[in-house]
């Protein structure tokens, strides 16, 4: 039977030719998104016969410089194991369309996950990336990890609202990930931002946010002008697409709009939860939450914000089922006014990250505006909302697409901004951003710098570089449905052959936290499991693991599949 599996040589040759052409095109800088991954998959789908050489392993990686460097190192470090890699690069949209949406991962693929605020709750990196439920098209378990034990722990932590008990479950859930090794979680690269300290003081570096990202609005609240100019100019790489907070789930766009539309809760300077539009919240029982609106709150147009607006917000989201806010409508069944400032939320299911990820994401919407939209819209998400009115610390000023978005301070907010305003400018090139900061055309660089640029910026007396740890991560996901990655011994060997600290040193000059091999960063002490450790880097141990798993080597040192 095994002979039947060998691909027809003529077809194989055709595939090789096509792949050679694609590689040639890729070398020229031409990426052929669809064909490329299919070609690798076609080659990988061939099942290696027992005892035959391990095939060249297909790798999909984004074109980013850090990823290119990562694979340059890994192909060198893994070569002593007798394996060869067939590395294909693609853009992020190719990765999303092929690997996530279509679940077409070759033998392995690398990705880095940003530290969005809702990923601070451990549920995201646990449930989304490794739960068997998310092994579906569009899910992030595209390496096809299935473990009943892990699923049970992941589900249990999600339904446990008692924090110490949940902590225990989250810690336990990370153990199977390290033991089964469905992924090589490498490191958590620090966020590096820079600012002009001669012009502004009071930066607030927050875990997972740095000093300049809009994810956590407290980062801007301490900024204090030192010169007559009372507004700060910030550069970043993205522009927003819309001013309508019901439209987009994209992290940068949605958090930028939430500077104007206050979320119910937010994260403080220590990245712990704190009330924002709310004065307080209380968990009545696992499926009932009372929220208390901050008394005296006002919208930017001067109208008071009341419990009517709170109830309206949840009803409105439930009525329209906005895709961008599906986590809210999926969680909240009803909202009832129970006091002058109190609204009782009934939840559909017990969901431990509710406060962090639902109340931290949903925002207070003014009823008097959203219930009076012009007719003829398929959904309120299609309304341009050219003059956003929220209740957050920043009021809308002006948005010129591709140029800037400007905010003015809201003196009515319970914490009054020390600035008069902020201007955020999208600049597509890092070099330009650095140049603008150095020349004084901008005051803060709020995009991920590397250490080389950071060192250059530090030479200017007026500029300061700030490093902040994050929960975002770099990983290599292994496709457990494809031999030899379906073999645990092989995966453990890769873990031993991967020196995380060395990689972090080489790629990011050591600016980051080395991973324990678990999806939660050790820097997040509340959720990390101090008792687990990734397999120690050692080529000898890697070879021993392979030998124990039945793998062997031929005369040329090429790795052979275990005999039948």
């Amino acid at each position, binding site marked *: 039977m095994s002979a039947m599996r060998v691909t027809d040589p003529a077809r194989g040759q055709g595939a090789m030719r096509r792949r050679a052409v694609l590689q040639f095109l890729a070398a020229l800088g031409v990426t052929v998104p669809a064909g490329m991954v299919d070609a690798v998959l076609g080659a990988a789908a061939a099942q290696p016969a027992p005892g035959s050489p391990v095939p060249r392993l297909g790798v999909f990686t984004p074109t980013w410089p850090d990823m290119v460097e990562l694979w340059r190192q890994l192909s060198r470090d893994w070569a002593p194991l007798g394996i060869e890699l067939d590395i294909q690069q693609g*853009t992020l*949209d190719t990765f*999303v*369309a092929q690997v996530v*949406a279509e679940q077409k991962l070759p033998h392995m693929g690398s990705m880095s996950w940003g530290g969005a605020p809702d990923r601070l709750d451990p549920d995201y990196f646990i449930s989304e990336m490794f739960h068997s439920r998310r092994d579906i098209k569009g899910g992030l378990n595209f390496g096809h990890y299935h473990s009943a034990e892990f699923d049970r722990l992941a589900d249990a932590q999600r339904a446990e609202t008692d924090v110490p008990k949940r902590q225990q479950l989250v810690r336990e859930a990370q153990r199977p990930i390290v033991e089964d090794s469905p992924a090589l979680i490498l490191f958590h690269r620090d966020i590096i931002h820079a600012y002009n300290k001669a012009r502004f003081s009071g930066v607030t570096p927050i875990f997972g946010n740095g000093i300049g990202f809009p994810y956590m609005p407290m980062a801007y609240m301490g900024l204090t002008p030192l010169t007559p100019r009372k507004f700060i100019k910030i550069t970043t790489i993205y522009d927003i697409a819309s001013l309508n907070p019901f439209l987009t789930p994209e992290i940068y766009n949605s958090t930028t709009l939430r500077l104007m539309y206050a979320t119910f809760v937010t994260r403080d300077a220590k990245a712990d939860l704190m009330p924002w539009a709310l004065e307080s919240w209380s968990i009545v029982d696992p499926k009932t939450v009372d929220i208390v609106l901050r008394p005296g709150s006002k919208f930017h147009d001067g109208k008071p914000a009341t419990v009517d607006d709170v109830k309206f917000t949840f009803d409105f989201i439930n009525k329209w089922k906005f895709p961008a806010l599906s986590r809210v409508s999926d969680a909240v069944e009803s909202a009832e006014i129970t006091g002058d400032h109190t609204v009782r939320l009934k939840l559909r299911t017990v969901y431990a990250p509710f406060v962090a990820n639902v109340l931290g994401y949903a925002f207070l919407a003014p009823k008097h505006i959203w219930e009076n939209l012009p007719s003829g819209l398929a959904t309120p998400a299609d309304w341009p909302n050219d003059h956003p009115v929220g209740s957050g610390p920043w009021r809308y000023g002006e948005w010129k697409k591709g140029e800037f978005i400007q905010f003015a301070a809201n003196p009515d907010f319970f914490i009054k901004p020390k600035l008069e305003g902020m201007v955020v400018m999208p600049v597509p090139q890092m070099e330009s951003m650095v140049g603008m900061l150095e020349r004084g055309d901008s005051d803060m660089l709020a995009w991920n710098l590397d250490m080389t640029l950071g060192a250059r910026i530090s030479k200017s007396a007026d500029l300061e570089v700030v490093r902040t740890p994050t929960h975002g991560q770099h990983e290599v996901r292994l496709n457990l449905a494809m031999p030899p990655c379906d073999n645990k011994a092989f995966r453990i060997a890769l873990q031993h052959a991967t020196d995380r600290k060395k990689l972090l040193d080489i790629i990011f000059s050591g600016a980051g936290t080395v991973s324990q091999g678990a999806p939660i960063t050790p820097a997040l002490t509340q959720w990390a499991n101090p008792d687990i450790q990734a397999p120690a880097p050692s080529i000898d141990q890697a070879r021993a693991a392979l030998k124990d798993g039945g793998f062997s080597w031929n005369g040329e040192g090429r790795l052979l599949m275990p005999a039948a």
Partner: protein
Amino acid sequence: MAFWRYAGRRGLHTAVTLLLLVGFMFVLFRMIPGDPTTMMLGTGELPAEAQQRLRVLWGLDRPLWQQFIAYALNLLQGNLGMSFYFRRPVSEVIAPMLANTVLLMAPVVILAIVIGVAGGSWLGWRRGGRAEEIGAVLALIPRALPVFWTGIVLLALFAYQFRWFPIGGIREAFFFPENWWQRLPFFDITRHLVLPVATGVLASVADPLMIQRTALLEVRHEDFMVLARARGLSGRAQRRLARRNAILPVLTYSAIMVGFAFGGQVLLEVVFNWPGIGRLMVDSVTQRDYPVAQAAFLMMAAVVVFLNLLVDLAYGWLDPRIRGG
């Protein structure tokens, strides 16, 4: 009469070309894997049910031919549809970016043609001389260099080193003039224009220049030039006569230049952080924002096709031999 038959035939060709273009582009963009909802799905922000709701809302669940008919009917009424990414009418998305691109590319095209015609005539008149040899090479060097490289060199020199010009952007957000010349109208936008326009002109001046030079070489030996010399026209008048008679090929070429200028210059726009249509086109393809991508490419193609039609008609009007073809 013959001209109008010719014009009608060419008009029909143009209509068929455009129709094929519309169909081709509709299919082309949808062949890229992923759809606008997968791009929003991105890194797991949208669950599958929410994604499906979006597909239904945006009409992406219907068969392709139905989507095409809806698109074509809208297009006939001048409606370019709604952008998936911005959720605004496509015309609202494209118009400001197009205006920015015209602001940048109009001076580029005009300067390239004026300098090209003047320089090409000057070189052509000095055929065989040292000046011609050096001049032609000098014009061809920046054309051979990648436009982003030229841009980066100009930035390194005039923005970083001498600090005469800004690093990029179309204007400074909240610019406060410090003296009288900075208070002049358009001061800020002009200083932002200098480097990208210079880069664009350097990259594109060689084509009109070399075309004009070749045309002038041909014209110089025409009978009417011999006659002009015989009539005792001054050297300057002779050059002027030759220049005017040699300009037609450059005008043909400028139709193509204008067409491509409408598509913006992606590299120029990225290097100088210019919010123009070129970057919008690239972004809309990446974001699978089909309506915007289709409209932008269609606009660029339509400009080229129409300008070609105009040039053909002008030729047919001027040269009766062409109408027979």
